[in-house]
């Protein structure tokens, strides 16, 4: 174990960190939006779309993320070219984000849907009986009650997402893991321990910070003294 080497390569990872963070940020943001749409489709039992949503969630949850990445990277351009859409100029990062958005959207909808269903029907009826529109009801009553239930699951989803970025080097994205892979191959297979240990520290730090953020959000939403076992 070469401590000096460990500290020497650490800056390499720090400089690749923005790519990883960008991927995480957009995948989480659009993944969450997608999961909201999928949840909405399922809750409203929209014809045609609901069975498609089930199919999508089942596929995303049942196949490895690495496989999904390869399918998107190699398959999506072919699929879209059938419709005359050319995405060959897309960067590898873009393909990565698309994969993680699709993956995340399926997983998070399985967090949001039960959380939505956990809010008592009576809360809906009370708002309905007073003449709230669906949107007013969601914003003022349902979402504030759903959030504390969903947040731990969403937080776990974020951790998984961060870890899932570690496979993107397979298609050649030079993020933190990509740098590690390059370092290992350029040093003819030596110093692996130092390299991977450094990567582990970077992931640890990112996950730790994001987890702290989620925990803080949980604290904020806990103040509702909910009856259903979530009393602060």
């Amino acid at each position, binding site marked *: 174990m070469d401590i000096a080497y460990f500290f020497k390569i650490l800056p390499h990872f720090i400089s690749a960190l923005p790519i990883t963070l960008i991927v995480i940020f957009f995948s989480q943001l659009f993944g969450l939006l997608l999961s909201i749409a999928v949840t909405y489709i399922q809750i409203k039992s929209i014809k045609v779309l609901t069975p498609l949503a089930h199919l999508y969630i089942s596929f995303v949850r049942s196949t490895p993320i690495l496989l999904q990445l390869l399918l998107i990277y190699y398959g999506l351009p072919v699929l879209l070219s059938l419709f005359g859409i050319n995405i060959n100029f897309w960067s590898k990062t873009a393909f990565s984000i698309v994969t993680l958005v699709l993956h995340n959207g399926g997983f998070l909808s399985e967090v949001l849907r039960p959380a939505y269903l956990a809010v*008592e029907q*009576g*809360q809906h*009826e*009370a*708002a*309905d*009986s*007073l*003449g*709230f*529109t669906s949107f*007013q009801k969601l914003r*003022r*009553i349902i979402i*504030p*009650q759903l959030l504390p239930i969903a947040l731990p699951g969403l937080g776990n989803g974020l951790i998984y997402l961060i870890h899932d970025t570690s496979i993107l080097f397979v298609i050649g994205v030079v993020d933190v893991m990509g740098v590690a892979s390059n370092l290992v191959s350029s040093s003819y297979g030596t110093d692996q321990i130092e390299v991977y240990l450094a990567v582990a520290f970077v992931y640890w730090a990112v996950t730790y910070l994001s987890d702290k953020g989620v925990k803080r959000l949980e604290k904020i939403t806990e103040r*509702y*003294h*909910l*009856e259903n076992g979530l*009393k602060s």
Partner: protein
Amino acid sequence: MLALKNIRKSFNGTDVLKGISLKVNEGDVVTLIGPSGTGKTTLLRCVNFLEKPDEGEVQFSNFQLNYSHAKKKEILRLRRKSAMVFQQYHLFKNKTAIENVMEAQIVVQKKTKKEAYENSLELLNKVGLVEKKDYYPSQLSGGQQQRISIARALAIKPEILLFDEPTSALDPELVGEVLNVIDQIARTGATILLVTHEMSFAQSISTKVVFMDHGEIVEEGPPSQIFNHSNRLRTKEFLKHFTNNYQKTTSL
């Protein structure tokens, strides 16, 4: 004021309401009584579309609505002129007592926060719970929650108040405080449609009592007729079973 015409509703092929017509005049306190599973609550929930009737019409204050093809806007309009008090209170769990009372005034009626707050204080005072205004529902007893939910219903100044077995979920010693509040509201001339199993309360508060059985109205009339001079066997049989547990008191 409120006229229901030929309301029909079935759940999975079972007819729950078999063509009910009912009139509630302004200032009336109409009480629906009858055995459990008769459709009283369903009828009440049909009034404001928490349950969608299969068929029927409603005439309410100055507009008419056909249940089988009601538009979203019409449903909202109907709901904004009525308010419901639920058996299980259903206070908004993420809001304090006073926020519960303020909520619809701000969201639906677009009142300012200040105006809504002052209104709500007054209403909480009316139901005797000003000192609990900053408590969350989970910190209040059932009776207190129900009184708050009555204040919440009153806050939108509904043309009709719908009470769905407001005391059925309460401990016996808490029933009185809620009935007193309802009694007090009835005296102010509010129009009320009430489902209850508190027979002596129904007798004392109602201007009209409606006895329902198997999805139909068996008999309706002033309380004295229904409770003392009914000539229907089914009504008499039902009323034989009730116990007297409402003692009217003058103060809260």
